[in-house]
């Protein structure tokens, strides 16, 4: 997956509907339901059918950077806009980007993408949820069920829903001062593993009940 270098400004690229994005190739990703057998809850395993979860089966991803900030534009089809939790039975739409926290893991192995990392190979997720009103969260995980929001979050999002499609742009400075928050460091010319997830709120999706991009992709940032 290419992260194209562009000269557009942060304001331009943060706009999900800006024409700048039409110049950047979209990579269509096949998404699958997370494997039920791995869920960290016997209740979830017993009460769900893998065919019924992970409703969103296709996600388009565009990646770009302008030397100082990185941008991801995620687009997927969703007939229902689930943006509020006004009842105990409601869940909202969401999406996330997953990158291993450290460039090289202890022992060299990639963190397992379908286990939200491990103790030796934690992962960093940038998490958007429709009811967060474009205030995303930065998360660290080191295994299933261990996600922990960090206090600070340098990620910003801008989202738009129209004609049965969600478009969400994530942006963050490539490098974030270490002391400020635990988060993956990126740089022009670097290459990192990357994964994606989508939650369909109207399908009661939350936690590990979601669709994900199955395998790590290699994200290569233009120099």
């Amino acid at each position: 997956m290419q992260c194209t270098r562009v000269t557009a400004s942060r304001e331009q690229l943060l706009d999900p509907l800006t024409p700048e994005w039409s110049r950047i190739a979209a990579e269509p990703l096949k998404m699958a339901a997370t494997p039920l057998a791995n869920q960290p809850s016997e209740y979830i395993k017993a009460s769900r059918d893998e065919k019924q979860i992970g409703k969103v089966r296709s996600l388009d991803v565009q990646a770009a950077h302008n030397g100082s900030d990185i941008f991801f534009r995620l687009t997927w089809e969703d007939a229902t806009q689930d943006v509020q939790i006004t009842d105990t039975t409601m869940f909202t739409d969401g999406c996330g980007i997953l990158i291993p926290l450290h460039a090289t893991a202890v022992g060299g192995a990639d963190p397992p993408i379908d286990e939200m990392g491990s103790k030796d190979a934690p992962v960093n997720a940038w998490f958007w949820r429709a009811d967060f009103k474009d205030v995303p969260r930065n998360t660290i995980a080191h295994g299933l069920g261990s996600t922990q929001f960090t206090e600070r979050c340098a990620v910003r999002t801008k989202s738009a829903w129209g004609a049965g499609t969600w478009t969400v742009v994530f942006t963050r400075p490539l490098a974030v001062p270490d002391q400020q928050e635990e988060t993956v460091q990126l740089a022009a010319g670097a290459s990192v593993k990357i994964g994606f997830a989508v939650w369909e709120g109207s399908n009661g999706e939350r936690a590990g009940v979601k669709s994900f991009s199955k395998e790590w992709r290699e994200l290569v940032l233009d120099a």
Partner: protein
Amino acid sequence: MAEPSEADKAQRAKQLASELKSQKAMLKHANRQLAMVFDLNKCLGCQTCVVACKTLWTRDEGMEYMWWATVNTQPGKGTPRDWEKLGGGFRDEEPRAGTLPSKREFGEAWEFNYDEVFFGGKGNSVHLQPSGDPDWGPNWDEDQGGGQYPNSFYFYLPRICNHCTNPACLEACPRNAIYKREEDGIVVLSQERCKGYRFCMEACPYKKIYFNLVAQKGQKCIFCYPRIEKGVAPACARQCPGRLRFVGFLDDESGPIHKLVKQWKVALPLHSEFGTQPNIYYVPPISPPRFDAEGNLDESKPRIPTDYLRYLFGDGVEAALATLKTEMAKTKAGGKSELLDLLIVYEWKSLFGPFTQDPAAIAPRRA
């Protein structure tokens, strides 16, 4: 990188399941277990316990519709509506899928026109009433009961979180946000770890977990553990004017819980078939005899059908009722009964085991 084989994936899933089982075993472990016994022969449905809990714990934003302690009429739909049919719990030791109740099914918090009636001078022209036109509430079918006149019947069923020995909620949470306290077995839902996924709400067969829409977290009865830690009995138990709520450790042989549950076996679990091993026990209600078609008393059958009590409290119900009747006959004949003395509660403090501390004596007075 080679795609792992199906066998590899299955192997890994097994490993994860085994690790999960160990984690859950640790979270479920408790050295001692606090329990309560509710004597249904004494409950008048006055709702004092309900309000005691409400005023102490569920007054914050998002908690308006919450009633951690409830008293409903049985037979009846209770709260949330038809909770007994909403699944959850275990069957043959496997988790059973459960339904997430809506706010409406729990019973919405009604808005009343207090201002205009009490302060707006309209006290003589406007009824005190909820706004909108509610058609369900947390105690909507109060006193309706079951059966047909002249053999209609009902009784009151107070409920709180059962602080189960095998909690379905604890098992269900994928974040391990629910655990039992080692020292007393109280089931706690960590507000730090909870992310509002609500699998616990699906899994609890008693439907005693609520969702705070403002905080976006699951919340439930905490057995008043801050009071327990100071030797003070839970508010619902202490406030009960009926003296029907016993509190103590299940293993304390000198206490009322052990005597009623283990020794006399008159206190029974509610819906034990849900498989969670609840720690709130009930002394089943004795009822008067039925009337036959001629209007004469039919001593052979109680007004509350034993089948119904068996449905709620299991197969021990007949023996429990028989024991109660035997002991009542003893005292009626002028004899003594340790069981009756225990259940009558001549001394109010005898309800609370070691938790007899007065809260007013330890809490600083608020200005």
